[in-house]
């Protein structure tokens, strides 16, 4: 290696470090471009499609849309959902299938959205919650239908 090339290499090497440091100094002096979020103080607003957990919406009369068809249970790859059905007696004296409990185990759920796709009556949907930590794992087993709730009129 000739001495001229050696000196050239040294200076081009030093110059490459200066170029990198210029970029670092730019961000050192431009505080407005900082992108970090102060998480526990300011909570992020998640988009409406975010898959946080499965919930069953109830209306003001404490009625849901679930018929107990177990389509969600069959669609689930992990056995997260368990539909326990019972038979109601209608005013006409006929037996009618209805859900007793829709058990949802959050610890098994991978938020793959397949149950919501499978549901024929839009009874369940994804909620935008994301802080799922609890002190005991039994608290992760949830019953999605409210106590005393019944099916909406007109949903078959």
């Amino acid at each position, binding site marked *: 290696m000739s001495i001229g090339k050696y000196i050239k290499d040294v200076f*081009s*090497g*030093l110059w*490459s*470090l200066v*170029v*990198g440091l*210029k*970029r*670092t100094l730019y961000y050192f002096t431009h505080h407005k471009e900082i*992108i970090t979020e102060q998480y526990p103080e300011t909570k992020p607003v*998640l*988009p409406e*499609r*975010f*898959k946080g957990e499965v919930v069953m919406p109830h209306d003001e009369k404490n009625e849901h849309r679930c018929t107990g068809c177990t389509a969600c249970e069959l*669609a*689930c*790859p992990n056995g997260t959902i368990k539909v326990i059905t019972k038979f109601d007696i209608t005013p006409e004296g006929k037996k009618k299938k209805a859900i007793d409990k829709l058990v949802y185990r959050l610890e098994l759920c*991978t*938020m*793959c*959205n*397949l149950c919501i*796709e499978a549901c024929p009556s839009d009874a369940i949907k*994804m909620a935008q919650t994301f802080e799922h930590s609890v002190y005991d794992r039994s608290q992760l087993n949830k019953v999605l239908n409210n106590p005393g709730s019944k099916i909406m009129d007109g949903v078959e």
Partner: protein
Amino acid sequence: MIEESFTTAEGDLVINVGPQHPATHGVLHLVITLNGETIKKVEPHLGYIHRSIEKMSESLTYRQFIYVTSRMDYLSAHINNHACALCVEKGLQIEVPGRAQSIRIIMDELTRIASHELWWGAMSMDLGAFTPFFHAFREREVINEIMEETCGARLTMNYMVPGGVMADIHPNFQRRVKDFITLYKKKIHEYDELITGNIIFQNRMKNVGYLSSEDAIAYGVTGPAGRGSGVSCDVRKHSPYEIYDKLEFDEVLETAGDSFARYLVRIREMNQSVRIIEQLIDNIPDGDFQAKTKAVLKLPKGEFYQRVETARGELGVYIVSEGGTTPYRIKYRSPGFSNLSALDHMARGSKLGDLVAMMGTLDLVIPDIDR
């Protein structure tokens, strides 16, 4: 295998890197035989994150098994799901609507950029540069937000279903992707200023981990690692799926075969991905986002194979069907496994400190290697 590594010459040192080591990015275990500081042999030991995904897939239906593949190469989850969806569609002979095809490709390329950005940050951090990680995550966060808005999740989306995509794109999707491209073009030169041109970085990368094109073919090295050795192995060019044959993009090739060549391939591939997205983002055709499929999918009896180009190389999905609702056998040909097998050949004779550069430029994702 383990016994063999101990029958070394007098004065040799056998050390373990991993399974818990910050440079291996996961539970990779390397047993390294050293003579002084020179590497004599590298033996990867696998099995620390084996979840038997192939066996699990055999008990799940053709709609259900796709979500598991997001957990293989979690940085290109979309592309894994895409491969499975394509393979099932091939068996069922479903015609995917044009809108779904365009959305799928945009998502794939966004995933590729996000994956390469994470690789760039993580690899720079391996080599001692700390801030590039934050620069990379700044742009990657924008992609993650786009994914969150349209697919509902940031990493394991499960957005591809047999017949199309799970939901239509969000109304903001096109605007936000265009915003991202503008941001990307404004910021990409920072990558070169910070790292590519840096003399310390170049000296650590050039002539390190040399892999000739013959060896790359022999070990089955694909993806940016193979293209860094001059092997033309881009599945998008050689057996185009979806509408890749109608798109204009270049296969990035470098012939040097060292770590720096593999680095350059990935940096340039991001630009090609942006080029693909630019062609598609304004021309998403109208129509359905999902083809009409039966409620229960049953593949006909036979064998089906589909390969795609993930951010790490060629992923193959091989399904053997007996005609039922679940596959009889599933085999994934993951790019990481083959790429890792070349590490021993690359590392022999080089110094221990260079091993990090080699592992960094192979872009190893351990759950993909182990499945």
